[in-house]
């Protein structure tokens, strides 16, 4: 994407691929949401209160988040959280981002030293939460083992590194991982996803003067780093 020399055929193929991916991702929660809504007339109060009601809320929120992600990844800036003059501490948001992923974190371990006193960043809770949630989701989907979070700061920037054992992208894929709707070959048959999580994290971070980057550590494990300007 972004290649000025794409032919009309290539553009059309890209459009179809994107619509296919988006359609697939939206179909699952919308199908479940509608199917459960159909059952409201027959269900008992207990079933509604304990199962159907909470599931409907989860599915509706998920659909809303998918829509926001799709718009942000497509460069529609109106979907990026408005900031104004806001401050947040990254360490305060780590636990919230992890717990928001609920079922996906079952059986997985987050290693994070909660005794942090790093400076606030020039971004709001919502932006930091969105970035971290996508980085964690990515780590959970494509890696194994514990996920390690490390926060450091210098005079200008606060950095949050997310590391886990992962195959990681192939060398010829590394330049594409932040492209919207791109998913590596390993990912396509194993897990759902639109391929926009890293795009969204980076877009939201850059909107507040920060960034999301990928590197490999000394052990060649993948590390994604969220960097945000200090408040």
């Amino acid at each position, binding site marked *: 994407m972004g290649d000025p020399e794409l032919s009309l055929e290539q553009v059309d193929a890209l459009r179809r691929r994107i619509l296919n991916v988006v359609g697939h991702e939206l179909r699952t929660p919308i199908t*479940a949401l509608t*199917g459960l809504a159909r059952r409201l007339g027959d269900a008992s109060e207990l079933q509604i209160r304990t199962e159907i009601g909470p599931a409907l809320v989860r599915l509706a929120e998920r659909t809303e988040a998918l829509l926001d992600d799709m718009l942000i990844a497509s460069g529609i800036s109106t979907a990026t959280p408005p900031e104004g003059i806001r401050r947040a501490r990254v360490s305060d948001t780590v636990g919230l981002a992890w717990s928001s992923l609920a079922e996906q974190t079952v059986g997985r371990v987050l290693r994070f030293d909660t005794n942090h006193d790093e400076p606030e960043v020039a971004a709001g809770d919502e932006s930091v939460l969105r970035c971290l949630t996508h980085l964690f989701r990515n780590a959970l989907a494509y890696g194994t083992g514990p996920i390690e979070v490390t926060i450091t700061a210098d005079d200008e920037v606060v950095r949050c590194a997310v590391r886990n054992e992962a195959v990681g992208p192939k060398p010829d894929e590394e330049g594409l991982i932040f492209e919207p709707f791109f998913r590596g070959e390993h990912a396509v048959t194993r897990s*759902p996803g639109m391929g926009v999580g890293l795009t969204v994290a980076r877009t939201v971070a850059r909107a507040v003067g920060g960034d999301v980057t990928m590197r490999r550590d000394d052990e060649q494990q993948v590390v994604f780093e969220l960097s945000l300007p200090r408040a």
Partner: protein
Amino acid sequence: MTDPTSIRVVIADDEPDVRLMLRYGLEIDEMSVVAEAADGAEAIERLEETGADAIVLDLLMPGTNGFEAIPEIRRRFPLVGIVAYSAVAGDFVRSEMRRMEIPLVLKQSDTARLADALREACARRRALHEANPDA
């Protein structure tokens, strides 16, 4: 009370809310959901434990996905009716399901079509087995 003659089904999908929706929907369609699984390997265990008649099998799952589970299910449980249930019905998925002779139902909120596919899949497996009991 569950009708003892109703088809006993295992639901295999990595999405808990999809499993919930299917459980409610299939029971309205007079099926008995006897177990749930979040991936293909778990689905095979549940079939072993329950002796179910049929399975609704999502194709795209982490761990052992649906494509990988189908041959094992066919080998170990030849009488079980398998219906592939997917949000994706592209060329590859359609051709693979045709090759494996597995009915494919696109994910949708109305489970009546899925229930019909399960009944038909069970009937076909029984007919095949009666025609070739040693296969």
